[in-house]
């Protein structure tokens, strides 16, 4: 450490997530420059951009940056790192706008005592929506520091430039002062007033270039800490009694045999019955000794009957997009195509199960949790324990995959309740069966699409009734003069008892199902028209951005026009998500004997605006496509009478190495558009592109996801 007033030293270029406590941090900030930003991050997360910054009025200050006396910069963000790479990308934004070396920037994430309030890490918002806020804060900090340097050096601001954290005179290079020298011993608070002047794309030296991941060394050495790895001294592992099915109600439990096991402690706190032991496996064994009685679930639904049920009970819905008049459109149609599309429930199945560790000290609860929503979790814990919010701190270490599934974090509340009840630190690490049971699945979906073509092979009407997934991804970007999209229920909540268990956001919530249905149906119509699927899309598409993305994909793929089924096994699908345009092409082989689909090659082109970290963006695209092959080919949660039948990976099949095709990613140069989403868009086209390629290969239209061998064979038989 260069200066006792500075931040703790961290390895060069490395982030840290849990090395500071608030007291230390507040002490430190009094000696450095603290940029106070007037944005309400909750608003920010909902979509507000820095243009919406208002003059500071509320006392709820939020600080995003700390510049220490040694010149090191710390980004403070309420977001979390779950593999998507923002621990690496966000410091790039700050370093760029501050004009400091990337290696001098650290990041603290997801700590509710240190970081500014944040609604959660989801929706591909971190770079797209939080990014501009962080950039604006950094740009303002830079401007403030240059003003301070001008005073110190007695030079006009116009004569000053910043290089690597040093403000230097343009005319006399011997005149300079570093950020560290400027901030030493001073506390300066500035508010962002108006809009900070952000750097232009042409001036970027850090943004737009691939930066090495900050989490690499931690993750390849086993040093990376996840919530379940936090082991406070004297901690007990808790295993919690769970019902056998959704809808089952608790009658009674006899815990005496478990209590008799040496080292075991049993907690009964209202609806929560837990067996605790210093070793998780011994707690698990003791839990098995609990004799519990539940009354059975009233649910009689299964993964096969669910689609009929959904159509019966879904609310009437509302039109999410419409134009013209369907009846007028139908009069123009020479061909009408109607089809129902189905998709089953899909699990998040992050490799890390929901985990949390809670410690109670001096009336304050600290919870380390694998969560996408540390701030909402803090509020929930405070409510559950009847504590003032300031008596709860949530710290988010590395998260072992989220995909939306860790937007709910019940395990954090359980750990806090049990720590309170026992007075001991408590670790809660869900088993895989708990993970499958309590997962908020991607909802099962039903689509009924009816659409017509005129003699010129243009789409003249489009009627899409959507049950289950909500509207995300359903927008019709083709030129259709008469269309209606009716959305009956969304992916959140459980209107009218539609689902026998929890449903919730799953990577690009709803868009995977919606794009599967729309892009399948577009291909069905292309086939009716006897046109090549790309040509048919182009004929019905004037959106310049989408045309450009589709052309880029076709060029890389080497697409040559041929109406499907051509026997080649080529497919195409397009979509828009989180502001990003995607066009994907795939080549598949179908085993006509077994119905098994092997995806051989995928090309994905994406216009995501300005790219902060191209290598990181490509990783997300590859991950999206690979993960997407799961819901496309095999993943479907099976259940009966409230019991989730899939409880582990022996029956629930994630994509394995042999499933993964050759993947080529194309990111379009798009310097005039601000950075858009990167963590979700490339997954949304996977179902449709494979379905369309299967049709092209064997002439069979598979209308239900996942496309299991049996369903493909069924479709081939007609």
């Amino acid at each position: 450490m260069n200066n006792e007033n500075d931040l703790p030293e961290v390895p060069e270029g490395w982030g840290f997530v849990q090395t500071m406590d608030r007291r230390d941090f507040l002490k430190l900030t009094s000696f450095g420059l603290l940029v106070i930003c007037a944005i309400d991050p909750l608003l920010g997360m909902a979509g507000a951009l820095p243009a919406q910054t208002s003059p500071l009025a509320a006392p709820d200050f939020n600080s995003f940056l700390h510049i220490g006396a040694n010149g090191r910069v710390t980004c403070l963000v309420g977001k979390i790192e779950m593999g998507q790479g923002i621990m690496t990308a966000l410091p790039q934004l700050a370093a760029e706008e501050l004009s400091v070396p990337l290696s001098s920037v650290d990041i603290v994430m997801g700590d509710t005592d240190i970081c500014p309030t944040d609604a959660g890490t989801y929706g591909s918002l971190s770079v797209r929506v939080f990014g501009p806020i962080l950039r604006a804060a950094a740009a303002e900090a830079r401007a403030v520091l240059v003003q301070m340097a001008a005073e110190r050096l007695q030079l006009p601001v116009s004569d000053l430039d910043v290089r690597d954290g040093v403000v230097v005179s343009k005319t006399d290079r011997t005149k300079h002062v570093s950020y560290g020298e400027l901030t030493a011993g001073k506390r300066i608070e500035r508010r962002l007033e108006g809009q900070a002047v952000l750097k232009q794309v042409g001036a970027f030296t850090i943004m737009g270039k691939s930066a090495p991941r900050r989490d690499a060394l931690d993750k390849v050495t086993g040093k990376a800490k996840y919530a379940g790895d936090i082991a406070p001294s004297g901690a007990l592992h808790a295993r919690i009694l769970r019902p056998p099915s959704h809808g089952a109600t608790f009658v009674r439990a006899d815990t005496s045999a478990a209590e008799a096991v040496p080292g075991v402690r049993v907690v009964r706190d209202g609806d929560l019955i837990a067996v605790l032991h210093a070793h998780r496996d011994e707690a698990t064994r003791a839990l098995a000794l609990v004799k519990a009685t539940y009354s059975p679930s009233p649910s009689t639904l299964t993964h096969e009957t669910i689609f009929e049920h959904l159509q019966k009970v879904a609310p009437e819905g509302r039109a999410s997009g419409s134009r013209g008049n369907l009846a007028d459109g139908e009069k123009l149609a020479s061909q009408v195509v109607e089809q129902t599309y189905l998709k089953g429930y899909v699990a998040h199945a992050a490799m890390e199960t929901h985990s949390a560790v809670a410690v109670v000290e001096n009336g304050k609860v600290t919870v380390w949790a694998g969560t996408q929503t540390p701030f909402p979790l803090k509020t929930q814990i405070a409510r559950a324990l009847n504590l003032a919010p300031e008596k709860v701190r949530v710290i988010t270490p590395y998260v072992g995959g989220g995909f939306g599934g860790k937007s709910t974090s019940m395990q954090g509340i359980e750990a806090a309740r049990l720590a309170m009840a026992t007075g001991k630190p408590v670790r809660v690490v869900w088993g895989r069966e708990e993970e499958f049971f309590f997962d908020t699945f991607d909802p099962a979906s039903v689509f009924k699409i009816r659409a017509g073509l005129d003699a010129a092979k243009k789409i003249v009407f489009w009627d899409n009734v959507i049950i289950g997934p909500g509207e995300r991804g359903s927008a019709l970007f083709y030129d259709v003069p008469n269309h209606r999209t009716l959305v009956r229920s969304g992916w959140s909540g459980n209107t009218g008892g539609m689902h026998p268990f929890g449903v919730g956001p799953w990577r690009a919530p709803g868009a995977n199902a919606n794009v599967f249905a729309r892009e399948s149906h577009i291909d069905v119509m292309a086939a009716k028209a006897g046109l090549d699927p790309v040509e048919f899309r182009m004929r019905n598409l004037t959106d310049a951005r989408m045309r450009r993305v589709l052309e880029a994909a076709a060029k890389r793929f080497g697409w040559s026009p041929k109406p499907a089924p051509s026997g080649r096994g080529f497919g195409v699908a397009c979509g828009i998500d989180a502001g990003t345009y995607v066009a994907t092409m795939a080549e598949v082989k179908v085993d006509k004997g077994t119905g098994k689909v092997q995806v051989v090659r995928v090309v994905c082109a994406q216009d995501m605006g300005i790219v902060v970290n191209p290598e990181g963006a490509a990783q997300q695209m590859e991950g999206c496509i690979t993960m997407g092959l799961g819901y496309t080919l095999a993943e479907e949660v099976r259940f009966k009478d409230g019991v989730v039948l899939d409880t582990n990976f022996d029956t629930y099949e994630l994509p394995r190495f042999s499933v993964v095709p050759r993947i080529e990613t194309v990111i379009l140069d798009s310097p005039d558009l601000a950075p858009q989403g990167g963590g979700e868009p490339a997954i949304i086209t996977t179902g449709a592109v494979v379905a369309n390629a299967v049709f092209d290969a064997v002439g069979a239209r598979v209308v239900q996801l996942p496309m299991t061998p049996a369903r493909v064979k069924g479709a081939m038989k007609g």
Partner: protein
Amino acid sequence: MKPISFLLNGVQHNLTVDETRMLLWVLRDDLGLTGTKFGCGEAVCGACTVLIDNEAVRACFTPMSAVGGKRVVTIEGLAHDDRLHPVQEAFVKHVGFQCGYCTSGMIMGAHAMLLKNAKPTRAQIVEGMEPHLCRCGAHVRIVQAIESASAAMAGGAR
């Protein structure tokens, strides 16, 4: 409870434990080695892969009775004197991870595979890594990393 002695990351360990307990929880809860991850508890995901006498095993499904007298290597024992093992180096270089939760198991599995077959073909890598699950979809890069580690080790990297 039974005395069990074994070599763990080159260090002799003498424990008195219930020999029916699984190695994973002894590593994590008794010995504080949390680099080995719990993913499924049924030997179907690979996150807890460690080496016993150079064979890849699932620690969640390996009772302590099978560990006595053996050499156990976990992810913590792979780097030497802060020098990464070539497989670790390659995972960094090719970014063979995202969330990192399966990574310890992936690296140990790849390491064990390369001990048996120093120059696997791409098809052999895919076959060898098939039991390992990665939800983030880093597969393409993991395969590249293993190819690269194999080449580096053939060139003399340890």
